[in-house]
């Protein structure tokens, strides 16, 4: 506390000078966490449009093989592989992570803990610049000679290591460098999130007074930092194989392709929880606000999230059951994988239980939060089929896997984004979004979503394997009924993409002349709602940073007339 007083005194005389850079330079050199958050958010959304466009192209090819796709042209087999590879890579590394972690982590953490910025604002800016560079390099990789890398987002060697095999010499290396840079950006960003949450909390804010979304983003950052290391080492080895011709993954020289798989999935599995936990955090915060209820079992949720994170380090080889690993190992990983379903089920139960006894208002953000739960549940239960080694023999590399992970990733990355965006839009832009347009966009996204991926479950059960640009060569997969399913999925995607126009229209219209939001339009208890909308540089006047007197979800407290009790209100 005395540190705060010292800091305040020592900087008061500078208070006039420091407004931060102005004009266009603001957007290049600003170290304000809110601006950096916006940069991550809009870069992520832009990349999401590119990833979505790629999905549009390859789904058109799948539904109408050989078609001249409007806005692309005919899809060659090599282009098809590059499209699916980069669609996956973009959605995970350049959409889900920057939006859920970097954008909302950056925006919310200082605000929700009552701080004026992140602890290391210049490292924060550096992290975005590295991230932006990684995105530019990734996009560049699509246009170089030979085309973009087409070895799947998993990049298994020897295909990914040897240019003669992949035929995308430059593209493969650029893709790999882009991914590595993205990792560096998030390592840099993670330091800020973790340190800021640990140290810079408002006076009075104990560990269990921190809003769940902040905890989740930080646990995710820890998970990321501890799991990505071996893959960075592996990526360095892959890059050397690609460029210098070393033999780390070349069996002819004593190397081992399966080493890459282990290094990749040791990260790859915790990575899915890196993106899941923030989405759960967003969901539960929104549900608490619109059900007017404390989270059911805050500590239980917290410990379960940590347990999930820890367990996630022990399940990775369920991606490799039939890869050529020792078959006895598969049994170990089936056990651990099925075990991890327990804490995840628990997280889902807590979310459901929070609704009990509430007073639920179905605003647009609330609809998204509820949809997250409803859809993610499908993703979660279908994972069991894949974690059970005996069943995975059949399902591996089929569209069943693809449908499973879209039923997890879509709720995480897309529903989670729309939930957070519609909820915090009033704070970020000072205006309210149009709720009716919001609902139209919601239903226009959710309903088609199911019509895209349920057919893919069916196709997967029918044996349809992945990453195939045309099923004409497989008589069992070239039946009319299978083509019908592919077409239903594609048409649903077209419908869903069309409805996204409503979102962008709503966003722009509301930003320009939506009704003023005020400080706390949702009557929420957490600290970000105590300051102006949008918050000024420094978030609060320098001598008025909030103190905290209670937990983050004091809704419906029996001693209160009002159904919510802000964290910063003195007793």
């Amino acid at each position, binding site marked *: 506390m005395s540190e705060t007083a010292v800091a305040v005194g020592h900087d008061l005389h500078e208070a006039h000078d420091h407004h931060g850079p102005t004009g266009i330079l603001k957007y290049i050199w600003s170290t304000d966490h809110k601006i950096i958050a916006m940069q991550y958010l809009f870069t992520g959304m832009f990349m999401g449009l590119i990833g979505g466009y790629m999905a549009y192209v390859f789904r058109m090819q799948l539904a109408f093989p050989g078609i001249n796709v409007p806005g692309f042209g005919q899809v060659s087999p090599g282009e098809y592989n590059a499209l699916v590879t980069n669609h996956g890579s973009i959605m995970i590394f350049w959409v889900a992570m920057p939006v859920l972690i970097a954008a909302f982590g950056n925006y919310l953490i200082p605000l929700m803990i009552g701080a004026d910025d992140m602890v290391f604002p210049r490292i924060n800016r550096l992290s975005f610049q590295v991230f932006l560079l990684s995105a530019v390099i990734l996009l560049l990789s699509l246009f170089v000679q030979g085309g973009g890398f087409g070895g799947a987002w998993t990049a298994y060697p020897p295909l990914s290591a040897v240019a003669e095999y992949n035929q995308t010499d430059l593209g493969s290396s650029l893709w790999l460098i882009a991914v590595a840079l993205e990792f560096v950006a998030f390592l840099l960003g993670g330091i800020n999130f973790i*340190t800021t949450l640990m*140290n810079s909390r408002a006076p009075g804010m104990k560990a269990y007074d921190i809003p769940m979304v902040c905890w989740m983003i930080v646990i995710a950052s820890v998970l990321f930092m501890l799991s990505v290391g071996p893959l960075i080492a592996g990526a360095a080895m892959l890059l050397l194989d690609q460029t210098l011709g070393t033999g780390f993954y070349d069996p002819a020289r004593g190397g081992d392709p399966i080493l890459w798989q282990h290094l990749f999935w040791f990260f790859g599995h915790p990575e899915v929880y890196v993106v899941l936990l923030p989405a759960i955090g967003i969901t539960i915060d929104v549900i608490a606000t619109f059900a007017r209820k404390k989270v059911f079992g805050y500590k239980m949720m917290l410990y379960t999230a940590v347990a999930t994170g820890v367990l996630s380090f022990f399940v990775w080889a369920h991606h490799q059951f039939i890869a050529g690993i020792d078959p006895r190992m598969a049994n170990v990983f089936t056990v651990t994988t099925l075990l991890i379903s327990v804490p995840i089920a628990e997280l889902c139960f807590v979310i459901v239980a929070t609704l009990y006894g509430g007073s639920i208002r179905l605003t647009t953000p609330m609809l998204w939060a509820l949809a997250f739960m409803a859809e993610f549940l499908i993703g979660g239960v279908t994972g069991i089929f894949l974690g059970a080694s005996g069943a995975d023999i059949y399902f591996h590399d089929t569209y069943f896997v693809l449908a499973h992970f879209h039923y997890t990733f879509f709720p995480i990355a897309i529903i989670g984004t729309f939930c957070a965006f519609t909820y915090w839009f009033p704070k970020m832009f000072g205006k309210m979004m149009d709720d009716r347009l919001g609902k139209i966009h919601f239903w226009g996204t959710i309903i088609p979503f199911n019509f895209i991926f349920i057919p893919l479950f069916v196709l997967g059960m029918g044996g349809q394997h992945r990453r195939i640009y045309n099923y004409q060569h497989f008589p069992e997969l070239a039946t009319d009924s299978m083509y019908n399913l592919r077409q239903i999925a594609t048409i649903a995607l077209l419908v869903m993409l069309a409805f996204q126009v409503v979102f962008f229209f709503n966003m722009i219209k509301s930003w320009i002349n939506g009704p003023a939001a005020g400080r706390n339009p949702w009557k929420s208890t957490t600290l970000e709602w105590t300051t102006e909308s949008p918050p000024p540089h420094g978030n609060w006047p320098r001598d008025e940073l909030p103190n905290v007197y209670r937990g983050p979800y004091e809704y419906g407290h029996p001693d209160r007339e009002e159904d919510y009790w802000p964290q910063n209100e003195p007793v």
Partner: protein
Amino acid sequence: MKPIATTRSATGVPTGRLAIWWVLASEVVIFGGLLASYLMFRLGHPEWAEAASHTNTWVGAFNTFVLLTSSFTAVLAHQAAEKGDGKAAAKYLVLTIGGALTFALVKAGEWTYEISHGYTITANNFWAFYYTAAGLHALHVIGGAIIMGFIAFDAYRGKELQRVELIGIYWHFVDVVWIFLFPLLYIAK
């Protein structure tokens, strides 16, 4: 002007120190992954002992001594910084940087010799790991030395003395990684 956030310390640990430990945690996993891969390969390929016999243990030992000494000077720098003596801290940091440069120069000579004798990164997978692991380490030595230079510059002017300890912690880590690399690459023959 620093944010108030930077000066708070709900855990009691200064934010800079907290941050550097998290950086080290992620670095440990990077090197850990690389070395674990190396170990698995080495155990599965006894014939690598032939290749490994060509690393120069004396040069490796000398570099180990250099790094350990530089860690010592980093400790002295920290002690000086604790006393508020920025100029002394800067002096010791410069000595540490000197150690880093010596290490890098010795390694450059070592590698030149080895490459000219055909022990290149593509010669076989032992050498591939040798150059990759030691190279990644060397990058951290050089990067650390550069940052240390900036901190020494500030310390000489009496500014940001708390960072002397932080770069010292990082430096000890770089040292510890080498303590693992030395036996794995030079002694195990």
